[in-house]
């Protein structure tokens, strides 16, 4: 239970948002050239970090825009919020 500062709407309760999981997993540029191991890596394998993790969130019950969050999963503290397309911050 925590608050998220939506870059478009401001601070709202987490229940307004939906987590989109780990961020910065790039969609393969040439999907036809991927072998099964690479597909498994892209589709299923996750870092699932205990500590600071970079994630995508969607303000589903608000502006419906996507953005990135750097959050400490061991205490749910949000370190940084940044827009889609931006590089992950150094923390």
């Amino acid at each position, binding site marked *: *239970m925590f608050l998220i500062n939506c870059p478009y709407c401001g601070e709202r309760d987490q229940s307004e948002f939906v*987590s989109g999981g780990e961020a910065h997993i790039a969609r393969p540029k040439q999907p036809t050239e991927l072998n099964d191991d690479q597909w498994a890596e892209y589709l299923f394998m996750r870092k*699932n*970090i*205990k500590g600071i*993790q970079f994630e995508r969130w969607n303000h589903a019950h608000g502006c419906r825009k996507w953005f990135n969050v750097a959050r400490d999963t061991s205490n749910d503290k949000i370190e940084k919020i940044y827009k889609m397309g931006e590089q992950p911050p150094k923390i």
Partner: protein
Amino acid sequence: MKNKYSIFSLIKNAFSNHENWQRAWRDPEPKKEYDAVIVGGGGHGLATAYYLAKKHNLTNIAVVEKGWIGGGNTGRNTTIIRSNYLWDASAGLYDHALKIWEGLSQELNYNVMFSQRGVMNLAHNLQDVRDLKRRTHANRLNGIDAVWLETDEVKKFCPIINTSQDIRYPVLGGTLQKRAGTARHDAVAWGYARGADEMGVDIIQNCEVKGIKRNGDTVEGLETTKGFIKTKKIGVVAAGHSSVIANMAGLKLPLESKPLQALVSEPVKPIIDTVVMSNAVHAYVSQSDKGELVIGAGTDSYVSYTQKGSFNIVEETLKAILELYPIFSRMKMLRQWGGIVDICPDASPIISKTSIKGLYFNCGWGTGGFKATPGSGDLFAHTIANDEPHKLNAAFNINRFVSGDLVDEHGAAAVAH
């Protein structure tokens, strides 16, 4: 040799005010080397150690646990046991466990309070009806007892359910597995710990794993807060923290760890003598032997290791509970808690070797691992001892995420995720 628990030992100890009970397991310091080390002293880990010693004669082994045994998800679940899963592989796995449950108290000489009070799954819309009927047929083909109940039969089996067709999600029927039920979760961990300890297994509490030492593609041992432990075989049964341990060995797993919540009410007189689960509205309830209602809520949508969970999840569950059971409207809740569950993309577990020799993982049980505790330990012990899976857990290897041979059990998992 441990004293056997019986009515006579109970009477005998009553005369000395129960002050002379033998301790149930030792509290040893770790040795320098073991034949195998199990990481995680929950039900699954302790069961693994028990069966390694009992069936495979591996007694020079240890269980390392960062907290106290049974203090993680073993003591946080809602104690439900059933085996009514859809696919053949899952039916084999979960029914193997259920068969062991049926004789477990006698085998361990420890009362795990296994109670086959039945588990009923409700249908609230047409798709639920179709899915649950299909699952009932699949169960019966696999030799698992399951019956379809019409709405009036649901009402007869559990009279306090509101079966009015005017509510938001009316009860359109349900399935019942009569062999299913509940058990005392702490007793399962304690019973396995006592049994394993008696055969020489070292159960080392307050011992956190800090690193896995590898020589190329082979494991050499574990760095722990109680020093280095040399071993050729490591079985990781760390539930929500599986990915953390995997990262120490340079592995990535297809898991996400999320908080799952549960809550109990104040104790009341017996009112519900079965377990009722409802996937669509997300509410399930049973009553403990102390009289508390035990209510399971859902998972949060985000990764977290906080063992808390969000308030809105509990609120949703209680809304559904109140609609289905108006009789509970003035019931007070006593406690709420969370556990961290490791969820696989196909809602099925992983009991598998890995690409590193001597490193085995038993994880991904997600929201429903308690029911499988004895079977999971038995099959994981087989996998570690023989360096190859038993036929019952062969389908639950980690390579299924590469081959695409997934075991999709989202329909049979009681918690939608």
